[in-house]
C-alpha cells in the first residue's frame, strides 16, 4: 500500500481520498487473517452496483472487485466498518447498503413485516375470544316442527 502511494505520488496522480470523504481513520489498522475476515464481512454488506442483488463479495464483476479492494485498503489504513460503509454510501447512496438503514421510506422495510404480524396476531386473538364467548347451540327441537310431528306420528303407529 505504501509502495503504491509513492508510485502514484511519483506520477503526480491523486485519486479521491477517503480522508476527504469520511475523515481520518478511527480504528486500528488490520493485517493478516483479521484483515481478510473483516474484508469478507464488510464486502457482504455492500451491494454490487452492476449486479442484481449481489454483494460485492459474491460478484465476479470488475466493479465489485475494485470496491472489495477499496474495502481491504481502508481496513489496512485503520478505517472502521461504519466509516467504510459511510464512504461508499456517500458515493452510491443507500442503494449500496444491502441492509437498509432504519430511516425514511427504508424504515418501512423493518416496520411493515412486524406491523403485519401484529395485525394478524390481534385478528386471531379477537376471533378466538369471540368463539369462546359465543352461546352454545341449542339442541332442543322446536315444538312446532311439522316434520318432526309427522315422524313421531309414524313411529307411534308402527
Amino acid at each position, binding site marked *: 500500500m505504501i509502495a503504491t502511494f509513492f508510485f502514484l505520488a511519483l*506520477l*503526480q*496522480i*491523486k*485519486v*479521491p481520498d477517503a480522508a*476527504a*470523504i469520511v475523515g481520518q481513520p478511527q480504528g486500528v489498522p488490520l493485517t493478516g487473517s483479521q484483515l481478510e475476515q473483516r474484508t469478507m464481512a464488510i464486502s457482504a454488506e455492500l451491494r454490487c*452496483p*452492476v449486479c*442484481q442483488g449481489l454483494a460485492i463479495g459474491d460478484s465476479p464483476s*470488475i*466493479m465489485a472487485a*475494485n*470496491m472489495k*479492494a*477499496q474495502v481491504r485498503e481502508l481496513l489496512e489504513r485503520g478505517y472502521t466498518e461504519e466509516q467504510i460503509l459511510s464512504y*461508499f*454510501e*456517500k*458515493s*452510491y*447512496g443507500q*442503494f449500496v447498503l444491502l441492509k437498509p438503514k432504519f430511516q425514511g421510506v427504508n424504515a418501512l422495510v423493518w416496520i411493515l413485516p412486524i406491523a*403485519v404480524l401484529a*395485525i394478524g396476531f390481534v*385478528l386471531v386473538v*379477537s*376471533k378466538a375470544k*369471540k368463539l369462546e364467548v359465543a352461546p352454545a347451540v341449542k339442541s332442543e327441537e322446536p315444538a312446532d316442527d311439522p316434520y318432526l310431528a309427522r315422524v313421531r306420528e309414524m313411529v307411534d303407529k308402527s
Partner: protein
Amino acid sequence: MNRTVLIIGIIIVAAIVFILFAGLGKDPQHIDSPLIGKPAPPFTLKSVNTGETIDLQSLRGKPVIVNFWATWCVPCYEEHPTLVANARQLPNVQFIGVVFNDTEEKINRFLAERGSAYPTLLDANGKTAIAYGVGGVPETYFINPAGTIVAKFEGPLSTEQLQENLAKALR
C-alpha cells in the same frame, strides 16, 4: 369482522400495486446519485493520449464533462463519436474521459482507430470511479464552473441528451 379483514386486505393490495406501479418503466440498474449538488470529488490523473497530468480542480471556471468508459464496454463504442463531435464543437467545455480497469495500449488503439478530441485519463484501480459512484460504463457527470456536479447520465449519450444535461451546468 369480515368487513375489517376485507378493508385491511384492500389496503395491503393497494399498497403493493402502488409500489409496483411506481417502479414500472424505471431502469433497475439506475442509481440516484447522492453527489448531485455536491462538489465533484477531486482527482489528478495522467492522460493516456496526451501524456499531460490533468487536475480536475484546475479546470474551475468552465463546465466539465467527465465520461467514464472502457474499451471492453460495447455501448462506449456507440457513444464515442458523439462525445468527440461535441468536444470539437464546444471548445469552452472541458471534456474528460476516465477509463478504468483497462490498459494504455488498448486505450491508445481505441483512440487511434476512432478519433480523440480531449484528454483520456487512466483510473488504474477504479478509485476515481468509486468516488463518483459509477455503477457501470459509460456513465457521464456534468460539472458546473463552480465545481459542483449538476447531473449524471447512465448509458451512451446522444447529442440531445448531452446538450440537455450540459445546459444544467451552464445555468
